[in-house]
């Protein structure tokens, strides 16, 4: 378990291409993470490879198996001369070569014995990835990690099928990086600073150059004020009203001596932004759900930072915020002279800073009431939280125990897929559960030898019937699917392992950086059709 020394390379250069995705703080979170892999199969080592390269803190492989010939055939991180050696050890050594800044450890024990001898062993990890576990060990491990709220990713590659299940009790995300987010401009409810600034500008008395370089945000503000005067203080709401406002703006374009409108780009921009910028400021439903969550309403000494921040945010909204979230404080690029653009930028920045200070005071007060030091939550953390207040997300998965429990199985979802048209990826989930049942009965997987394929088909079919019966479902799985499953013979195809190695590692990175929303909770990939589906089971 020797520690490797740092690479001595400048991390800013080495990690440049990924820092552009998750930033320095995301990278720091990765570098602090301890990842555990159970079973260094091809899929397992591919997953680790893809988190070691971007620089997690350390990894530990738990694997009681010795390297076999067929392991070497599909696993890049085992060599022909490793046959007979500890799979955990060989894989740890070869994976360790990928990045000198990552520490590698291994335990040559099966997860079953480890759970028995030292059930607390797993509690020190940031995330655990388990490959090809049998049901009993899986549920036991799942229970231990669930208790400690450590995320567990269950993964499996079977023939052309890839399977991933995330089990985490609670995962909170501040930076969810939404695909398309509207700007936070508050044109419907202008804050005092914005009002003062816009009102200080008089369009009538401006020179030609000033007129054509007044930021569209200011133009829109002014025309909305004018609109409100004749519309009961309401902003334009529907398509028709917005078109009327656009017409008003167009009429504001200056004309030259001959009465021909000048080319004023800022007015064009104001018109194009009517639809996207003139929105009602409100609390997104996801954020409202956080406010209503017992974790937010009952802050106690055990509360996570995220919930303390949520509570402070909630209290802010109902006090200083006058019903609104803190201002994000950024504005888009626009045609303007730089002086007024910078002034406008500062107007938004200052309000955002004021909001942030109010929330910081609330966070500190909450921390104090809980007997924690104010330094427990850094200003940067609060700033990031405020900037992302509209995009906060919460993932709570169903537990493995619920998924596997006869009374709690998601019967409706499964039934829907069972009865759907051919090509449904979820049928393979049912088949995977079927081959596990087969394993329990015969102590081997169907079609393990080519000669077994045909005779195993009816056996697997029986297993599936029993399984569906246990679930209280009456449908059946088509024979060709069962045949296909037997043909796979539990083999691990490398290209599928490579694919799932990428997918699972990506989820691990999302979880470790607490950026982006992870898959909730089951993902099935069909390599032959190149299709995949996400469902909650």
């Amino acid at each position, binding site marked *: 378990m020797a520690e490797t020394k740092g690479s001595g390379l400048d991390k800013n250069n080495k*990690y440049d291409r990924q820092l*552009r995705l998750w930033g320095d703080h995301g990278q720091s979170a990765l570098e602090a993470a301890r990842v555990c892999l159970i079973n260094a199969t091809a899929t397992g080592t591919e997953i680790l490879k893809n988190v070691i390269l971007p620089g997690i803190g350390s990894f530990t492989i738990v694997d009681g198996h010795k390297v076999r010939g067929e392991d070497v055939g599909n696993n890049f991180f085992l060599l*022909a001369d490793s046959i007979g050696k500890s799979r955990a050890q060989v894989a740890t050594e070869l994976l360790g070569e990928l990045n*000198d800044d990552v520490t590698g450890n291994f335990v040559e024990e099966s997860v079953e014995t480890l759970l028995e001898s030292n059930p607390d062993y797993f509690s020190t990890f940031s995330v655990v990835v388990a490959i090809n576990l049998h049901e009993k060990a899986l549920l036991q491990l799942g229970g231990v990690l669930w208790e400690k709220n450590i995320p567990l990713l269950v993964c499996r590659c079977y023939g052309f099928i890839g399977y991933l299940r995330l089990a985490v009790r609670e995962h909170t995300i501040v930076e969810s990086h939404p695909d398309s987010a509207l700007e936070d401009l508050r044109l419907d409810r202008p804050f005092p600073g914005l009002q003062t600034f816009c009102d200080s500008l008089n369009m009538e008395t401006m020179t030609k150059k000033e007129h054509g370089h007044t930021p569209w945000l200011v133009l829109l503000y002014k025309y909305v004020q004018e609109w409100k005067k004749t519309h009961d203080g309401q902003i334009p709401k529907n398509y028709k009203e917005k078109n009327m406002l656009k017409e008003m703006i167009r009429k504001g374009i200056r004309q030259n001596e001959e009465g021909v409108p000048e080319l004023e780009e800022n007015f064009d921009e104001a018109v194009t932004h009517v639809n996207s910028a003139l929105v009602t400021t409100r609390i997104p439903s996801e954020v409202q759900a956080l406010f209503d969550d017992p974790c937010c309403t009952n802050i106690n000494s055990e509360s996570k930072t995220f919930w303390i921040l949520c509570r402070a945010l909630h209290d802010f909204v109902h006090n200083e915020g006058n019903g609104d979230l803190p201002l994000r404080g950024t504005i888009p690029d626009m045609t303007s002279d730089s002086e007024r653009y910078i002034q406008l930028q500062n107007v938004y920045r200052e309000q955002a800073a004021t909001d942030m200070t109010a929330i910081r005071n609330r966070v500190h007060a909450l921390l104090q009431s809980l007997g924690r030091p104010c330094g427990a939550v850094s200003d940067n953390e609060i700033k990031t939280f405020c900037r992302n207040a509209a995009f906060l997300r919460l993932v709570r998965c169903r537990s493995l125990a619920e998924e596997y429990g006869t009374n709690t199985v998601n019967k409706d979802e499964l039934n829907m897929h069972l009865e759907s048209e051919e090509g449904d990826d979820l049928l393979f989930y049912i088949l995977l559960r079927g081959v596990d049942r087969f394993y329990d009965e015969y102590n081997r997987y169907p079609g393990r030898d*080519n000669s077994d*394929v045909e005779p195993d088909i009816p056996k697997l079919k029986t297993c599936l019937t029993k399984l569906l019966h246990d679930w209280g479902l009456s449908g059946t799985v088509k024979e060709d699917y069962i045949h296909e499953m037997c043909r796979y013979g539990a083999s691990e195809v490398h290209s599928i392992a490579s694919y799932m190695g*990428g997918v699972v*590692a990506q989820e691990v990175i999302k979880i470790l950086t607490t950026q*982006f929303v992870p898959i909730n909770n089951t993902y099935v990939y069909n390599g032959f059709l*190149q299709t995949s589906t996400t469902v909650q089971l």
Partner: protein
Amino acid sequence: MAATLKGVLQGSLADNVKNSKILVVGAGGIGCEVLKDLVLTGFKTIEVIDLDTIDVSNLNRQFLFRKEHVKKSKSQVARESVLKFNPDVDIKAYHDSVMSPDYDVNFFKQFTLVLNALDNRAARNHVNRMCLAADIPLVESGTAGYLGQVTVIKKGLTECYECQPKPPQKTFPGCTIRNTPSEPIHCVVWAKHLFNQLFGEDDPDQDVSPDTEDPELTAEAGQSALQSEAKTDEIGGIERKSTRVWAMNTGYDPEKLFNKLFRDDIKYLLSMETLWKKRRPPQPLNMTQLPSDTDGNSSAIRDQRQWSVKECANVFSDCLGQLKKELATQGDGGMLVWDKDDETALDFVASVANIRAHIFGIAMKTRFDIKSMAGNIIPAIATTNAIIAGLIIMEAIKILSGKIKSCKTVYLNRVPNDRNRLLVPCTLDPPNPKCYVCAPKPEVTVVVNCTRFKVGALQDKVLKSYLGMVAPDVEIDDGKGTIIISSEEGETEENNDKFLSDFGIRNGTRLKCDDFLQVYSLVVTIAHVEKLEEEKEFEVVGDLSELQPQEEQQQAANGSKPHNGGDKADGQCTVPCLNPWAVLTLSDL
């Protein structure tokens, strides 16, 4: 090895895999993954070609390389690393450009399959044509950050890489860069041009001095500016001698350079008054009278902190000294090549771009952001490449099973879409009968002003850069067979500076263009116009019907003709980007 595959890859397929010969073009992010996947899927004979050498910034994903391999050949190190793990495969590595004439159609014909793992459009175009000429199936791929895509190209059966026009790579009009920048990127481009003018290869298209031929200038305004040139000559010499020679003569003196570039040239620009009637005029800077530092935000790390103008000027000074030394080590006539991963070269561009931005009232940017803009950096991570490589191998396996018709174009989304799909597979489209590459008799129309467009520009900008030819031969289809461009060195160079009209080329003239390496013939019809919009020098129109006036086009677009990608879905296709190739054309591997 790969014994477990027997059951899954049935009978003849396992043999097909074993007996096939695969060419992997590119040994970068996707290439490393593909090589590993091929070997572990049972492929035995592989050749890999890559021109590039290994950089530190590759190590976060190109797992066949270690820090001790930095600056070595990607293809050769990749080969050695794979062989270390699996000695019983036959891998041949070429440290070379796939566009070299050594890799002709016979070279391509020896392969069962070609797998592209490229990062640029020029090479993709070329390999596309080589595979069409050799009639070898091609699996094409690309990644950008969390996004990726894979598709299969087979002559006569599917669209080729060039069947659908791609968005042009973004360029900026010269006068925007030289006279009237309005966005940060304009300043970054100018700064890179300045680097090349001072230390790199001289390129007349990268002039950094004020442009007196700006079409916005009236004849009169240009005239008065020209007259004032005598004045500027005294203080620095705008056009007398090249910027490079002048800078060298001053010994790359920071103050002299600064005051010429950021004071005198700006004053000169101000003298072109028409430009500033509606724009905010730039404000000249004097190196000894810079605005004082105000921002006390010095706790942030250097890369992500906004430098003040004064700081920029200091960095500019330091860089000049450094780069001057580096240039001296190159010997007489030597030059430096700008590289985004070279600290000094990047510092130079970051400081210059910011000073210029300040002058023009444009938002200044951090070094981190400027690196991204100047280097066209596309984020790249191991996970996406691993996913895409897995998809590539699955498509390859389908081709080898004789199931090419069930191959798909697969898009990888950043997160599952509204239908809970992370992957979006689409059936392959048939070839575009009007494609200027894979149609039986490809034709294209080039719109130019024949009296102002030179033969050299036809060769470099139209045929090579835009139409992707490597070594074109061009003959006028006038019955006499006048050859205006020859791929043989020394035969037609003297034509390069002549205008098309000098050879009697006019509206409607047909040019027969051939590229022997690509086994590609294209008929170019010239359409003469006096002036193109947006100051474009030329325009290539694949389909003449596209030349119809805007309004008609609008009608056609609103009519029944679906946008590419809109109707080829498997009933579940929501194409993540409008142009399905947009991701590919961005990728950096």
